[in-house]
């Protein structure tokens, strides 16, 4: 271990240290001033984000005896995760007070989960993948149940924990099988071993191990059929936690998944750069992507609740990103995830604004009737978010989908792109329904919150502006984001 090692996971270290320290600092913060803890967490998240931004370079570095890897993808994901977390913290301050959830542990837990995500995106070894996934999951189990004693929240936590533990079991078992077959858990070594020893590529033990590892990761990104937890948990969890899960967790798990897939790229001899997906994996990934897109979008159509609709929307978008994974274009996937994250966050801003001010947290479509006219700013932000999620220019969602489908078509998966476009068209139905309700319906009963109250919270409005601006700016200037991603040199996910 030396200083260079530390540098490879600096954002993770900052977050983990910050999380632990904040846990102790919070003990000294009086109950009435818990927002101080929130602000401190905000600073830590920003510091970690800035450190990642400062470290971005085209170089790929390994640390801790090859256990972790630092490259442009990882740092990009770090920045994205930290920004998202910072925005979620801003959204939490008022929301938690209003909903009686202002307990200091929220912020350290958030930071610890975030540190797990940061570790996941740097993982270069299956064991680190497992560790990171656990580190990000366990705080999330607690956070899902944070609205205790609300029953739905407790139910969400328990469901998430049970299914999550189930999936983690598969993951760790898969790692064990892979180790048994190949004698290593390091993705780089694995890749080399597969190239050296072609007999290994048809090893049943290895393949079973790979399948189980994939299960564990597909569970985290909520791909069909490992998605069942998502709607229930997303709906039951406090809205801030849902926003965090739907955006940050997904991005982190996707990068980890891509690293694993890239580690097995040598499964098939026809390995073409920059594609990092073995032909052996591609049909399965494409199939899961297609089913996920269809199930996510079609089921979202039938929802009567905006929050639950967004849960299915997140499943659907996992399907799109997975299509990108099948195409092997990590840049397109990460770009898409960033675009998706900000649009979803913008949508959750509105949900949180409603949850912070209206008497009870009611996210049925009817409850949103006329909101766009009572609070035009929120209406506009929601419209931006929905347009981006559908993929209408000039929003980030459009560019994201464009890059993604282009990559998919380039890898000879045209049918998958066709399904993607068709389901996107279908998705307009339920996304636009939100706007229709927002702007064209009269509320059933007199709204309880004053329009002014909906826009009153300064930190929340900052988060709203930032996410809305990101949706627009990424849509208009995609090259700035891409520059951050590619960082000059074509980076390999696994070295």
């Amino acid at each position, binding site marked *: *271990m030396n200083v260079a090692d530390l540098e490879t996971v600096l954002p993770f270290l900052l977050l983990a240290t910050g999380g*632990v320290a904040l*846990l*102790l600092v919070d003990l000294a913060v009086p109950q009435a001033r818990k927002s101080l803890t929130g602000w401190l967490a905000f600073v830590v998240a920003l510091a970690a984000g800035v450190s990642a931004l400062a470290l971005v370079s085209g170089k790929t570095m390994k640390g801790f005896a090859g256990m972790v890897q630092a490259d442009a993808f990882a740092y990009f994901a770090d920045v994205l995760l930290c920004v998202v977390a910072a925005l979620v913290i801003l959204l939490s301050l008022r929301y938690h007070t209003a909903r009686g959830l202002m307990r200091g542990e929220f912020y350290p837990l958030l930071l610890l989960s975030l540190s797990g995500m940061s570790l996941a995106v740097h993982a270069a070894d299956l064991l680190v993948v497992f560790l990171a996934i656990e580190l990000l999951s366990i705080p999330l189990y607690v956070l899902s149940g944070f609205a205790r004693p609300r029953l739905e929240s407790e139910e969400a936590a328990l469901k998430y924990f049970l299914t999550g533990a189930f999936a983690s079991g598969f993951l760790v078992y898969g790692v064990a099988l892979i180790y048994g077959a190949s004698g290593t858990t390091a993705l780089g070594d694995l890749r080399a071993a597969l190239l050296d020893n072609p007999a290994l590529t048809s090893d049943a033990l290895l393949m079973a191990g790979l399948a189980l590892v994939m299960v564990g990761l597909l569970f985290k990104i909520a791909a069909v059929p490992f998605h069942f937890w998502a709607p229930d948990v997303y709906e039951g969890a406090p809205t801030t936690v849902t926003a965090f899960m739907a955006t940050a967790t997904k991005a982190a798990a996707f990068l980890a998944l891509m690293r694993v897939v890239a580690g097995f790229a040598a499964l098939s001899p026809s390995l073409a750069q920059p594609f990092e997906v073995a032909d052996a994996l591609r049909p399965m990934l494409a199939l899961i992507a297609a089913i996920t897109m269809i199930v996510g979008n079609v089921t979202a159509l039938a929802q009567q609740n905006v929050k639950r609709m967004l849960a299915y929307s997140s499943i659907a978008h996992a399907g799109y990103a997975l299509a990108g994974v099948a195409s092997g274009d990590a840049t397109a996937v990460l770009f898409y995830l960033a675009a998706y994250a900000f649009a979803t966050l913008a949508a959750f801003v509105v949900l949180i604004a409603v949850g912070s001010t209206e008497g009870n947290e009611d996210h049925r479509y009817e409850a949103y009737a006329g909101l766009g006219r009572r609070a035009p700013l929120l209406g506009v932000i929601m419209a931006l978010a929905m347009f981006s999620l559908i993929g209408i220019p000039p929003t980030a969602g459009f560019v994201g989908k464009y890059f993604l489908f282009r990559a998919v078509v380039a890898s000879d998966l045209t049918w998958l792109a066709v399904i993607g476009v068709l389901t996107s068209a279908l998705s307009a139905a339920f996304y636009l329904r939100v706007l229709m309700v927002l702007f064209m319906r009269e509320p059933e009963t007199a709204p309880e919150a004053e329009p002014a109250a909906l826009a009153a919270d300064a930190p929340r409005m900052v988060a709203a502006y930032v996410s809305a601006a990101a949706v627009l700016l990424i849509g208009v200037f995609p090259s700035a984001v891409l520059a951050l991603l590619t960082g000059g040199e074509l980076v390999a996910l696994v070295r």
Partner: protein
Amino acid sequence: MNDFLPIFVLLVLASGLVSLVLLISVLFGPRRRARNETKLQPYESGMRPIGPAQRRLPVRFYLIAVLFILFDIEVVFFFPWAVALRELGWAGLLSMLIFIGILEAGHFWLWRRGALEWEKMDK
């Protein structure tokens, strides 16, 4: 056969330890003549051993149990470190100190939050 010697030693030590503990309690424990029901029951850490399986139990039992398991397992990590203490050198010591630091931070937090206090735990 030699490979199994440590296990054999462990076996002897373990049973010896249990016997010792039981002996001590027989020698020094309070002795009552009365043979009431409670006294005749097997010791189960305070739980009622016979009854319907789905009972409501105070959650504090679980909390203590979970905390115990948590710290117990973490302590296991000390063992390989202790064995390789010299080879790992200062870096190993530093790593372990960080590890202990994190563990103690959690411990401290539990303590300050009152998780270890039986009576006030309901708060």
